[in-house]
């Protein structure tokens, strides 16, 4: 439990650091949302400075940072300048979709890559193992944009899957169940892209960590004692190999979140990605910072989740036998 508490405090510190970083960037960066308004002769300088005062942009950044921190504590992320609504509900409505996409992609990725990586490691050196290694290496080497665009092109060209948005145009009239399956169908393409990209990485890691365990002396000893292959693999190899794989969970979440930004924009999935992109294009400061913080929150949360899982699966950490680092 102390281990988890330690991790938790660390995560909070990390989030604080990220927020400070964001504010430092805003300070260093030239230009602001109002720059283009200033060029407009119809808007007087007084109006602009009044607006700046309203959004608190005329104060020095440590003051703004302090105020922003205090408002975060009240779950208030500031005000979006371009949408003219509070940031928090806006972000949340989109974050739900991103989470839906990312989490289902993550679950699918693990369902696919753990057995494949395990299987490849057990059949090391055989044709199938070579196939897995080569294909995963190739997928890792292909940039995500290319994969996403190719998948999209195939789906659109042969009308295999619905693309664009989250639901069909006429989905309002559907029953509840039909609506869910409609969303599921629209989710299939972005999920597929994410799973393809991410599982290529995870398969390689799982394969490597299982290979390492298979080389361990105790596995040879167990084999010599005559334990059946199935029992050896499931009872003695899998739990040990799971440790590095679980640590990977946090890492894979980072990849998935980055990937989902791109995939959401390409596939028109109404998640955080397109929102952040629009906010970037409109220089909507608080929205961008809010989005960044939210993505950092997801990552840190994922890391914490992985730590909790590790605690559950690895007795060495539970008993404090290994250093928590």
């Amino acid at each position, binding site marked *: 439990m102390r281990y988890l508490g330690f991790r938790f405090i660390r995560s909070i510190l990390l989030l604080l650091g990220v927020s400070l970083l964001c504010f430092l960037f805003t300070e260093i960066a030239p230009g602001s949302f109002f720059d283009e308004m200033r060029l407009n002769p119809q808007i007087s300088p007084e109006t602009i400075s009044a607006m700046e005062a309203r959004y608190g942009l005329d104060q020095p950044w440590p003051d703004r940072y302090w105020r922003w921190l205090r408002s975060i504590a009240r779950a208030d992320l500031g005000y979006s300048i371009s949408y003219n609504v509070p940031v928090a509900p806006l972000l949340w409505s989109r974050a739900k979709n991103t989470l839906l996409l990312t989490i289902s992609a993550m679950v699918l990725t693990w369902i696919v890559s753990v057995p494949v990586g395990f299987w490849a490691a057990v059949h090391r050196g055989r044709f199938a193992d070579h196939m897995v290694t080569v294909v995963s290496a190739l997928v890792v*080497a292909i940039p995500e*944009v*290319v994969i996403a665009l190719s998948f999209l092109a195939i789906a*659109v060209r042969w009308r295999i899957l619905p693309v664009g948005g989250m639901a069909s145009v006429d989905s309002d009239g559907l029953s509840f169940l039909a609506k869910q399956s409609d969303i599921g169908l629209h989710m299939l393409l972005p999920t597929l892209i994410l799973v393809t990209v991410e599982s290529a990485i995870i398969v390689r890691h799982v394969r490597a960590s299982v290979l390492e365990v298979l080389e361990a002396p105790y596995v040879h000893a167990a084999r010599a004692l005559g334990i059946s292959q199935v029992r050896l693999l499931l009872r003695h190899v899998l739990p040990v190999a799971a440790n590095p794989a679980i640590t990977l969970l946090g890492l894979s979440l980072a990849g998935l*979140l980055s990937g989902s930004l791109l995939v959401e924009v390409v596939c028109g999935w109404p998640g955080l990605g397109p929102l952040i992109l629009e906010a970037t294009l409109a220089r909507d400061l608080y929205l*961008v910072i809010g989005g960044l913080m939210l993505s*950092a929150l997801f*990552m840190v949360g994922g890391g914490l989740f992985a730590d909790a899982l590790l605690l559950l699966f690895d007795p060495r950490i539970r008993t404090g036998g290994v250093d928590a680092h």
Partner: protein
Amino acid sequence: MRIRTAALIGLLLVLHLGLLLAGFVAPYSPIAQNRQLSYAPPTKLHFRDYTGWHLRPFVYEWMIAPDGYVEDQSRAYPVSLFVKGHSYKMLGLFDASLHLFGTTEPGKILLFGTDGFGRDEFSRVVYGGQISVAAGIVATLIALILGSTLGMIAGYYGRWLDEAVMGATELFLSLPWLYFLLGVRAFLPLHLSPLRTFFLLTCVVGLIGWAKPARLIRGLVLSIRSRNYVLAATGFGASNLYVVRRHIAPEVMGNLLTQAALLIPQYIAAEVTLSFFGLGVSEPLPSWGNMLSNLQQYSVLTSYRWLMAPAGALLITSVTYYLLADALHSRLKSRST
């Protein structure tokens, strides 16, 4: 193994030389528009007409028909090497008008077809590659120089410096990098001259990327520093500079090269992604990213498949670099054991 590495390096050299001499390789200007030839498909190279087979390929002109483009077979244009065409600046320095290949006007050789403005896609891929690949290389240099310097300092001096640097890397790694990239881009002015955009972009990508190499180098330095021969050298009174120069730098260099081969394709993809989002190099200047951004419209994506050409170029570059990284990595491993 050595042959494979040499072949990969040769391939990359040819690729980069081609991009460097873009004006020579590309038959047309990347920004010359031709509204009559909007979305023309790739020109077909012919070797055969009614008189029989020819050794020299020839092309026909595209003619607009009610249902798309058809070949105007009334006149053939021979394709030849080293032809005079529009003038350009070789390497940005001196004027030239020689091109690797071309055909006689008014015939046109459009290897990858044209885009919506009738600009030659092949020429744009070559010129765009110049920008995208240069962005990848410069960003990698920035990330590696920054990362290895900080990593070395952290690994060598340890204590609070190590803590501080590693804390900072954790901070930089705790954001999904694409969100981070967009976020930082949001704080920079949106409309800039292409050259300034290019430099800002590469700086941003490089600055965000320092954390991973820094961790790698730090770990490496830590392990080298505790080796017996290094401890012995320090014991005999070797200065810090001597240890770094003699023992640490050589080993770090090999790893840095591998790391560079891994990072360059990633950072090329980063530039492509940003430009794809409309946040990078802007029209009319081509980059692989802003060329691909037209494909965000489904109609363009499905009807004009040849516009995927920049994606193909990106794919080839990326896979070659990864193969090189793999070859370098296994060479390093075989040397250390």
